[in-house]
C-alpha cells in the first residue's frame, strides 16, 4: 500500500496533463496581452464614448448618446469621411494597378529582374518618416518636382498647399512607399499560373491581352482580394504622412479619420468625442473586412 501513493501521484501528471499545462503556460503572455491591450481598451473606448470628458477642464460626465448625436451633427464629419474614402479608394486603385503592372513586367523572361525587384521594393524598408519628409521636400512649391516641370516648360502647382492636388499627392507618396509588397505577392501569384494553360489559349488564337484577362486575372483573383483587404485596412491607418505633408489641410481636404481623431483627442483634449470617433473607425474596419470576405464568394475564381 505504501508503494501505491507515489504511483497514483505520478499518474496524475500524465503526458497529456503535462502537455495541457504547458499549453496554458505558453499562451499566457499572449492572452494577458490581448486582455490588457485589446479587450480592456476596447471596453474603455465604448465607456468613454458615453462621456463628456475634457482633460483640461477636468470634467468627466456621463452624457449617454450625446457624443453620437454630436458625431451625426458635426459639420466636419462628412468632409472627413469623404477625405478618408478618397484616400482609401485612390490608394487601392493606384496601388493594385501599379503592383500588377510591375509584377507582369518582372514576370517576363528578362535578365536583371531581381535587380529591379530590389529597387521597386526598397522604399518599403526606408523609414516611413524619411520617405515622407523627402517627398515633402520634392513637392514644395519651389521643390524638385516643380524644378523638373519648369525645365520642360510646365508651371507646376503648389502640390501640398492647393486643395485640388494635396490629397492626390499624399496618395502617390504612399503608393510608391508600399507598392513593392503587393508587387511581390502578385509576382508569386503570376508564377503560380500554369504556363500550359496560357500557351493552349495562345494556340487557340487568343490575343495576349485576352489571355491575361480571361485566364491570368481570374487565376490570381484570390491574391487581388487579399492585397485589396490589406491595402484598404492599412490605408485607414494613415497618420504620419498626413501629419508631415499637409497637417490635414488645405482646409479639411486631407483630414482623414485617424488624423481627425488625433486632433479631437490630443489637440483639443476631447477624449469622449475622440473615443466616439475611434468607434466609428473600428466599425468601418470591421464592415470592410466582412464585406470583402463576402465578396470573395462572388468574384474570386475557385479551381474546383
Amino acid at each position: 500500500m505504501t508503494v501505491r501513493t507515489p504511483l497514483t501521484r505520478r499518474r496524475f501528471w500524465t503526458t497529456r496533463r503535462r502537455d495541457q499545462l504547458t499549453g496554458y503556460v505558453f499562451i499566457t503572455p499572449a492572452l494577458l496581452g490581448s486582455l490588457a491591450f485589446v479587450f480592456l481598451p476596447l471596453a474603455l473606448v465604448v465607456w468613454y464614448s458615453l462621456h463628456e470628458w475634457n482633460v483640461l477642464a477636468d470634467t468627466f460626465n456621463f452624457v449617454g448618446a450625446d457624443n453620437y448625436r454630436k458625431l451625426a451633427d458635426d459639420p466636419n464629419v462628412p468632409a472627413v469621411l469623404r477625405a478618408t474614402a478618397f484616400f482609401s479608394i485612390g490608394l487601392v486603385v493606384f496601388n493594385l494597378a501599379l503592383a500588377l503592372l510591375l509584377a507582369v513586367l518582372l514576370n517576363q523572361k528578362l535578365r536583371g529582374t531581381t535587380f529591379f525587384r530590389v529597387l521597386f521594393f526598397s522604399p518599403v524598408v526606408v523609414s516611413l518618416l524619411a520617405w515622407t519628409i523627402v517627398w515633402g521636400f520634392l513637392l514644395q512649391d519651389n521643390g524638385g518636382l516643380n524644378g523638373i516641370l519648369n525645365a520642360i516648360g510646365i508651371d507646376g502647382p503648389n502640390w501640398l498647399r492647393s486643395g485640388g492636388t494635396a490629397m492626390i499627392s499624399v496618395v502617390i507618396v504612399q503608393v510608391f512607399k508600399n507598392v513593392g509588397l503587393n508587387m511581390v505577392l502578385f509576382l508569386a501569384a503570376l508564377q503560380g499560373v500554369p504556363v500550359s494553360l496560357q500557351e493552349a489559349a495562345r494556340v487557340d488564337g487568343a490575343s495576349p491581352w485576352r489571355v491575361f484577362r480571361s485566364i491570368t486575372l481570374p487565376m490570381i483573383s484570390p491574391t487581388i482580394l487579399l492585397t485589396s483587404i490589406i491595402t484598404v485596412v492599412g490605408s485607414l491607418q494613415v497618420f504620419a504622412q498626413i501629419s508631415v505633408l499637409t497637417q490635414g489641410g488645405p482646409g479639411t481636404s486631407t483630414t482623414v479619420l485617424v488624423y481627425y481623431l488625433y486632433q479631437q483627442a490630443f489637440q483639443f483634449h476631447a477624449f469622449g468625442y475622440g473615443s466616439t470617433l475611434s468607434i466609428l473607425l473600428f466599425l468601418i474596419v470591421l464592415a470592410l473586412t466582412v464585406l470583402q470576405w463576402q465578396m470573395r464568394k462572388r468574384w474570386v475564381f475557385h479551381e474546383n
Partner: protein
Amino acid sequence: MRTRTKLFLYGILLVLCVPFVFPTWWMITSSFKPNADIFSPSLWPSTWTFEPWRQVFEMQPFAQQYWNSAYIAVVVTLGTLVVSSMAGYAFARIRFRGQNFLFLVVLVGLLIPSEVTIVPLFRIFNSLGLVDTHWPLILVPMLGPPSVLATFIMRQFFITLPGELEEAARMDGLGRPAIFRKIALPLARPALGAVAIFTFLHSWNLYLEPVVYISTRTKYTLPQALTQFTDAYQGQLWNVQLSAASMTAIPVLIVFVIAQRQFIEGLAHTGLKG
C-alpha cells in the same frame, strides 16, 4: 523574345524606377548641399558640405534619440519573438481544453487597428504614471495587436511541421518545453526571421504612439525627432532634416541590400503595412 521588345521592356522598367529610387537619392545628395542652394535642381551637390550632418547632433540629442529607437526596436523584436513563438506553438501543436476559443480571443486583436485604442491606452498609461516613458512603446507592440499578427504567423508555420519529428523526440524522453526549444524552434527560423524583420520595422517606424506619449526631447524616437529640425522662425532646415532622415534610412537599407531575399519574402508574406 525579340531584341526590340526586350529593349522596350527595359526602357519601361527604367522609367518606372525613377519614383522609387530618385527620392532616396535626392534625400542623400541634398543632405550635403548648403541650405542656400537646397532647391537647386542638380543631381549632385555643386558644393559639398558636411555641416548639416554635424548640425543634426547640435540641434537635437540625436545620438540619444537614435539609441532610443534602436533599443526599443530590439527589445520589442526579441519580446515579440518569445511571446508569439510560444503562443503560436501551443495553438498549433498542443491539444488543450478551450484551445479554439482562446485562439479566437487572441485573434480579435487582428481586427483592431491600434489607432482605435489609443485614447484609452493613453489614459491607462497615464494613470500608471508611464506617460513620457518608453514603456507604452515597448509593451503595446510586444503584447498588443502587432504581436497577435506574429502569433498568427507562427501558428500557421508550426501547423506545417510533420508530427513524426515530435513523436520521435518524445520517444527519446523529451518533454514539451524541450521539444519546443530543441526541435520546433530551430526549424522555425524562416518564420522567426520574417516576424523579426516586420516587428523591427514596425517599431522603427512607429509615429502616432511616440507623438502621443513622449514629450521630452531626450526620450524622442527617430521618427518623432525627424520632424523637429526648424530654425528660430519655424522655417524648415531641409538639409539638416534630410541628413537626419538619411541617417535613419541608410543602415536599414544596407541590411536590406545584404539580405534582400529574406526581407522581400518575409515582409510580403506577413503583409505588413506602414
